[in-house]
């Protein structure tokens, strides 16, 4: 094969980048070397377009142990324990092959977490799909949900939360963002920096096959109609092997055998070897003849670029090799010493006795391309003018609560094991954030994923801030204290200035919100080129939030019982721009999204959390998509209890406006809560009284909970009937 600029281009390297390869190598690279450069310099692995913007994000706090740069973020959660978490996309594979794409997305993010020494205790998923009227959307939803369940259920990690949106902008490019949270001892965190000249490099896990070759490169280009032809670049998952790998690694981590460890994720053996040696400032030699292989006659190029799943690379203490081998083999996994750490600063790969690649590591990392791509500042639409409601209040409520973006997600989460582990305090849909207790403790994690892409499309800066604020609010609404964030930045083609402008603005908004809410970003993932046929997705900076509550018994959900006052905390201006009411009832997606007032967000949230932790709050729900009336209806449905709403003008702005920083609290004594709020200069008003089996909007209008439920739970079962 002729190695030239044209081949480099087909590998995803442009002419300037290929020139840089030639300069570093001082010669024409071998095929394997070109493959290594192309995947390490792919957008997916190098963050070449996003890096300069990501630096703006706040990443530190006294409780942050490891911020971005490790396999996952690590925060101190007390009692000598750390939460280890990250969210990662598997968008392109999930469109080509929904089941395997989603399944291996879950597998990959699990490995990022247990590679650091943490036992995974929870999975969440942020999903965006196209227009439900399309057959392809149904196929993708079905496959993605089955894939997430198929993998997560088998490895025995509960899937406890997530979110699902539909929008035609995702027709050809769904988003599958998987988040895993694990627990480790703070003094037993494992990192990837290799050390110790001569130390053995050990391969553990599944055998290497030809699957997923150039997957990272595929994730770094736009989609065309022939994308189905890329199906062979989608990996195939084996959750059973992953489960063995989790248990084997965690058992090995009880010993002192491991010097460094890294999973083989995107770009497989290449990225794990290069990153481990690069971070440690050492060199690495790999003998590919020793790599466990699933297929015959694999080339060095194929082995280095394979993205076969369920594999880990370890650097071991030489005197602990036998101990490690015994543990790995106890779990019926392959253990192979495939190389050693050197002091050369180079990665040297041999195959069949010949050198297949010999690359200096420092320039491979340091000379990686870094782009400050041109940006165009997004034009934020003018505020929404007056709109006339085409439907009555009750008709709008019944239509909204039934729409794909607001209807019950039960059909989805009923396919996910949410209780395995025996620590799930608040299951999906029962609280604004999932609550997962730490085994043997009263303490619990509060977990959520959030983003409102339609806000981000209209105003990426406000949308970025809103995504962070909503995650913070959802954790707060359970009584937990929000601690840190993982982000999954899903955007279109960064070579287009308007897309890069969206990205930059979203980061700006996120950074502002993270700083104002003491909610630093500790890990994340960037997924660009989410376009099909030149059409970009809505900008989607998905936020995964993690919080802690000292006593899981104090956490509240959204279900109301009878005999309670409903009190709205926070100001209502009636923001209908970019609201779901506007889209679903009026059929337009216009106006500016709701303002994000971070000071109000902070003050209202801290007040609400204080009230919950003091006891006396029976239920709490934040007001988000669909506004106040939808939030009340969701609380009524969750508790199977009616509400008599305080009489109020029937303006859609009041009932369906999506003003931020608002919560509904169910309490025994509403007057006392309102007085306390007023004393703290927090807006509060009485909005209803719980009881009975109807949602009473006025003297003349009431909807039975049964009618609401029928509307709310209709969509998914009917779609898949």
């Amino acid at each position, binding site marked *: 094969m002729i190695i030239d600029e044209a081949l480099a281009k087909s590998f995803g390297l442009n002419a300037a980048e290929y020139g840089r390869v030639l300069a570093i190598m001082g010669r024409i690279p071998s095929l394997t070397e070109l493959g290594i450069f192309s995947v390490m310099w792919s957008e997916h692995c190098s963050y070449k377009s996003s890096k300069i913007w990501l630096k703006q994000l706040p990443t530190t706090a006294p409780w942050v142990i490891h911020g971005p740069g490790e396999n996952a973020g690590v925060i101190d959660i007390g009692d000598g324990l750390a939460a280890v978490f990250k969210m990662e996309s598997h968008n392109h594979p999930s469109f080509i092959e929904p089941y395997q794409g989603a399944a291996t997305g879950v597998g990959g993010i699990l490995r990022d977490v247990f590679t650091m020494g943490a036992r995974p205790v929870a999975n969440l998923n942020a999903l965006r799909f196209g227009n439900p009227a399309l057959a392809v959307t149904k196929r993708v939803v079905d496959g993605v949900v089955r894939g997430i369940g198929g993998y997560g259920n088998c490895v025995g990690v509960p899937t406890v939360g997530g979110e699902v949106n539909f929008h035609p902008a995702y027709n050809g490019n769904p988003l599958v963002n998987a988040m895993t949270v694990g627990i480790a001892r703070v003094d037993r965190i494992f990192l990837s920096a290799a050390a110790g000249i001569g130390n053995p490099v050990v391969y553990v896990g599944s055998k290497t096959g030809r699957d997923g070759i150039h997957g990272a490169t595929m994730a770094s280009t736009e989609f065309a109609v022939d994308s189905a032809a890329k199906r062979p670049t989608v990996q195939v998952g084996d959750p059973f092997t992953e489960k063995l790998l989790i248990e084997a690694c965690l058992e090995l981590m009880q010993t002192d055998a491991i010097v460094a460890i890294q999973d083989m994720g995107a770009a497989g053996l290449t990225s794990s070897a290069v990153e481990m040696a690069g971070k440690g400032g050492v060199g690495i030699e790999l003998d590919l003849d020793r790599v466990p292989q699933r297929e015959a006659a694999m080339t060095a190029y194929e082995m280095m670029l394979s993205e076969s799943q369920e594999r880990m690379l370890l650097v071991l203490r030489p005197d602990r090799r036998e101990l490690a081998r015994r543990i790995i083999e106890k779990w019926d996994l392959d253990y192979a010493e495939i190389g050693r750490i050197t002091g050369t600063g180079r990665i040297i790969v041999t195959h069949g006795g010949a050198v297949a690649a010999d690359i200096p590591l420092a320039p491979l990392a340091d000379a990686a391309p870094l782009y400050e791509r041109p940006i165009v500042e997004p034009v934020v639409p003018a505020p929404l003018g007056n709109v006339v409601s085409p439907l009555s209040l009750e008709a709008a409520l019944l239509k909204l609560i039934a729409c794909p973006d607001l209807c019950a997600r039960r059909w989805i989460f009923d396919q996910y094991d949410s209780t395995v582990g*025996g620590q799930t305090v608040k299951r999906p849909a029962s609280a604004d954030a999932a609550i997962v207790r730490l*085994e043997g403790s009263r303490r619990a994690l509060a977990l959520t994923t959030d983003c409102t892409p339609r806000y981000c499309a209209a105003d990426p800066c406000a949308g970025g801030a809103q995504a962070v604020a909503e995650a913070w609010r959802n954790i707060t609404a359970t009584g937990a204290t929000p601690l840190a964030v993982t982000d999954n930045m899903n955007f279109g083609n960064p070579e287009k200035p308007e897309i890069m402008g969206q990205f930059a603005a979203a980061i700006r908004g996120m950074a502002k919100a993270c700083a104002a809410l003491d909610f630093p970003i500790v890990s994340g993932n960037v997924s660009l080129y989410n376009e099909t046929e030149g059409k970009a997705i809505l900008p989607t900076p998905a936020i995964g939030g993690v919080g802690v509550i000292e006593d899981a018994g104090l956490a509240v959900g959204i279900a109301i019982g009878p005999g309670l006052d409903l009190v709205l905390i926070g100001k209502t201006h009636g923001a209908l721009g970019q609201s779901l009411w506007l889209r679903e009832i009026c059929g337009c997606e216009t106006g500016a999204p709701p303002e994000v007032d971070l000071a109000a967000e902070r003050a209202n949230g801290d007040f609400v959390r204080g009230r919950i932790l003091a006891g006396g709050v029976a239920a709490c729900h934040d007001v988000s998509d669909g506004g106040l009336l939808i939030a009340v209806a969701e609380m009524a449905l969750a508790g199977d209890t009616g509400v008599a709403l305080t009489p109020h003008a029937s303006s859609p702005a009041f009932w369906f406006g999506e003003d931020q920083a608002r919560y509904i609290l169910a309490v025994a004594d509403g007057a006392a809560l309102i007085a306390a709020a007023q004393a703290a200069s927090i807006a509060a008003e009485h909005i209803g009284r719980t009881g009975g089996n109807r949602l009473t909007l006025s003297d003349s209008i009431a909807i039975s909970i049964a009618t609401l439920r029928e509307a709310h739970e209709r969509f998914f079962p009917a779609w898949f009937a």
Partner: protein
Amino acid sequence: MRAGILLFPGINRERDMAIAVRQSFGTAPRMIWHKETDLTGLDLIIIPGGFSYGDYLRCGAMAAHSPVMGAVKDHAARGGYILGVCNGFQILTEAGLLPGVLLRNAGLRFLSMDTQLRVERADTAFTSQYQKGELFRAPMAHGDGNYTADAATLDRLEGEGLVAFRYADANRNGSARAIAGIYAPNLRILGLMPHPEDLVDPLMGGTDGKPLFDSLAAA
């Protein structure tokens, strides 16, 4: 009562089970790797849920041939107590210790939700702390829980009072005669699909499953 929990590769509810056992028994169970063959000193063998061997071939089929299963059969022959939950139930049927088979759920989808179980008899070592006819809640989480046997076997199970629990709210997985769990003729082996071990703590939403472990502790 001294309990042991079997560990096959791919099992994933062993921790949940250990918590439930420790809470009711006051002692931690012995965790038993599937290659062990000595079960001496144990009164109760528990096979927990999960995906032993990835459910490849057939749920429970490979685990049923693990080295430890010979010792489990000896334990059964001695009249020892055995509890198999979910994958554990599947393994017991594959090992021939309980009749019938668990097929794919009728709707061909994984089902994870709480279900209501009816206690068919309260005079066994597993159910003495329940009342006959009592309904209790248990989470289920399985793709293959559709209990099936031939009509003669089902009639025999019913006739001999060997149906332990039935789904009382909805028979979502399509099990024959809504059977959720069955006993061996000596009433010392119980297999069931739902997970009482995941509902033994008020923090997790209830203690409906705790009487099953309290019953065993008192047996």
